[in-house]
């Protein structure tokens, strides 16, 4: 395996200075993404998942600013790119699809216009060739009657169709990475499954890497080989899907999994996570999840937990794991 990852995010921090104070949306997160892999980012609303995605493409809305860290794409730090270089980067190297297909397409332009726009920007195809490409793309994403769709306006399509169009736009220039920012949240359950299937199929066909952002653990389980769990702009736990689902080592992940219905014989009670998400304006000194954590300890309130390996494919930042090591050692001493 080539040693430089396709995408390497190092210590990324993003914040939004507002009238009330600075909102720390993302606080020093790092992760890698390899060619053809699918990385899942889970967390509740406000945990900084989407902001992370926008930071990678540098499309934060005012007053959002990347305040620290590096983002390497194929070994190049894109934070050093000029805005002009970014134009050539966005949509060509990394593209993104958004949560709400209803509002993500420009209402006053036809579908065809919006797909060809990306093609004309990034390739030297002429208008006619771009149109042909757009037609192929619509076929690829499974839109029926593509010839007709090209000339239609977004409001004439259903939600699922629009999301397919969004995917077509994102794939127009065969990007290396596709970021899917809650691509199925606004869709019906049956349509959700279709869209996810389509994305997996396309990944196999085109070989791109996918970053899947969602609060839906079901989606993540189905799609991803590596999972990052985020809370309050920090990574609390990461690992393979199996590790995260069957061996959660952070209280927040455990809480998340407990709040998920299981279709097993024994009727387990669903346990919601109590409390409300943290106020990003006033971040606590210690672990951000501590005020809601039922296992919180003194140290959790005063000190940020460090990320420690559980095994070769699993990292977690929770003081509970440290305590466990201590307890084991103590136990060992007693017995030994």
């Amino acid at each position, binding site marked *: *395996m080539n040693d430089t990852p396709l995408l390497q995010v190092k210590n990324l921090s993003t914040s939004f200075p507002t009238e009330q104070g600075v909102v720390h949306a993302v606080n020093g997160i790092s992760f*890698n993404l*390899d060619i053809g*892999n699918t990385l899942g980012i889970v967390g509740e609303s406000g945990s900084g998942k989407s902001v992370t995605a926008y930071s990678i493409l540098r499309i934060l809305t005012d007053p959002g600013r990347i305040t620290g860290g590096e983002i390497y794409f194929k070994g190049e730090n894109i934070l050093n790119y000029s805005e002009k270089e970014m134009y050539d980067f966005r949509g060509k190297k990394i593209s993104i699809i958004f949560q709400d297909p209803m509002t993500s397409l420009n209402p006053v332009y036809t579908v065809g216009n919006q797909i060809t726009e990306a093609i004309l920007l990034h390739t030297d195809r002429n208008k006619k060739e771009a149109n042909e490409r757009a037609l192929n793309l619509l076929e690829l994403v499974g839109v029926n009657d593509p010839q007709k769709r090209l000339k239609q306006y977004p409001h004439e399509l259903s939600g699922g169709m629009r999301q397919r169009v969004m995917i077509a736009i994102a794939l127009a220039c065969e990007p290396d990475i596709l970021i899917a920012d809650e691509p199925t949240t606004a869709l019906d359950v049956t349509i959700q499954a279709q869209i996810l299937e389509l994305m997996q199929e396309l990944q196999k066909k085109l070989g791109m890497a996918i970053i899947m952002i969602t609060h839906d653990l079901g989606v993540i389980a189905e799609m991803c*080989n*590596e999972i990052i769990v985020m809370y309050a702009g920090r990574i609390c736990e990461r690992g*393979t899907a199996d590790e995260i689902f069957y061996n959660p080592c952070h209280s927040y992940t455990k809480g998340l999994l407990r709040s998920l219905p299981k279709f097993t014989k024994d009727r387990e009670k669903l346990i919601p996570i109590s*409390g409300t998400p*943290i*106020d990003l304006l*006033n971040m*606590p000194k*210690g672990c951000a999840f*501590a*005020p*809601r*954590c039922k*296992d*919180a*300890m*003194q*140290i*959790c*309130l*005063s000190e940020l937990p*460090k*990320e*420690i*390996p559980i095994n*070769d*494919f*699993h*990292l977690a930042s929770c*003081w509970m794991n*440290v*305590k466990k*090591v*201590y307890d084991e*050692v103590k136990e060992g001493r007693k017995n030994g």
Partner: protein
Amino acid sequence: MRKFSSDKVPRKKLLSLHIDVDRFLPATSEQKEQQVTMLPSTTFFKDGMRKLFKKPLAVFAIVVLSLMVLTIIIAPRIVPYGYSEIIKVEGKRDRGLKNLPPFTYSEMEQEAIDNGADIFPHIFGTDELGRDYFIRVVYGTRVSLTVGLFASIIVLVIGLLYGSIAGYFGGMVDLIMMRIVDIIYSLPDTLMVILLSVVLDKVIGESLHGTAFASIGTNMISLFVVFALLYWVGMARLVRGQILSIKNNEFVLAARAMGASNWRIIRKHILPNCMSVIIISTALQIPSAIFTESFLSFIGLGVQAPMPSLGSLANFARGGMQSYPYKLLIPAIAICLIVLSFNLLGDGLRDAFDPKLRR
């Protein structure tokens, strides 16, 4: 996937971190709560007022308007001249009293003062008939503010009633009521105001003679009538739209399920929820009414002479504007200040109270 790199703290090393075992004791729920800094809870109104008073421009507007209101209340009690009084000096007419510059006395007045008489200064001078200009401007401001306020209240009451009935009952009632609104809305309002003012002046002029209304003049009455006939449609549309959007909320359904009457639902549930929008648009209606009044005064359809309004004062001052530009400037600045203040206040209220602007 690739294995995680070894730059993380390995498990074994944890023991050398020198962590006090006491710190692994569970945290109490009080301690947890302390971590969460709650925003001070405020009511919608308090929060809005706090925001309003944080805006320097809105505060400026409130101060200017308060000063004006104070002036028009106090000044007539202090200044010993009437707005239509042609000033006499010791009972005699004084030709020298016409068109005096600010803070000056005529020769006759000067003589009287030298003889020990106490004559109140002409703060803004006098007009071409020998009337005190300051008191005329004060009364003019009073008329303009009154017009603005009353016109807005008329618009508010009619628009609110009409809009809430149409919006609340919906269906056929709404359809017919809103068609009427559409037609009135499509009429060019200023032209209609002119037309109706011309006519009403003649029609109701006779019948008003001798009543209390005579002093404010037929034009003023017709202005109010016109506002009552035409200008409420904007408010009615606004209220209806608000009600339609609120009506479908679950809390209204819940109230109805509990057997609340229509009137109670409108009063208790719907109106409080669209109050902020209504107040803001009323605040913005006042300057537009003042604009309309001054416009009508300008084309000769405003208040009845000798009653002044800021518009008519400015209009009359155009005649001698090269010789006495201040006579034009004073009422002009007064109008600008009033309109500006109301606009700023309206903007401030919108920023502070409109929930749609809140994030």
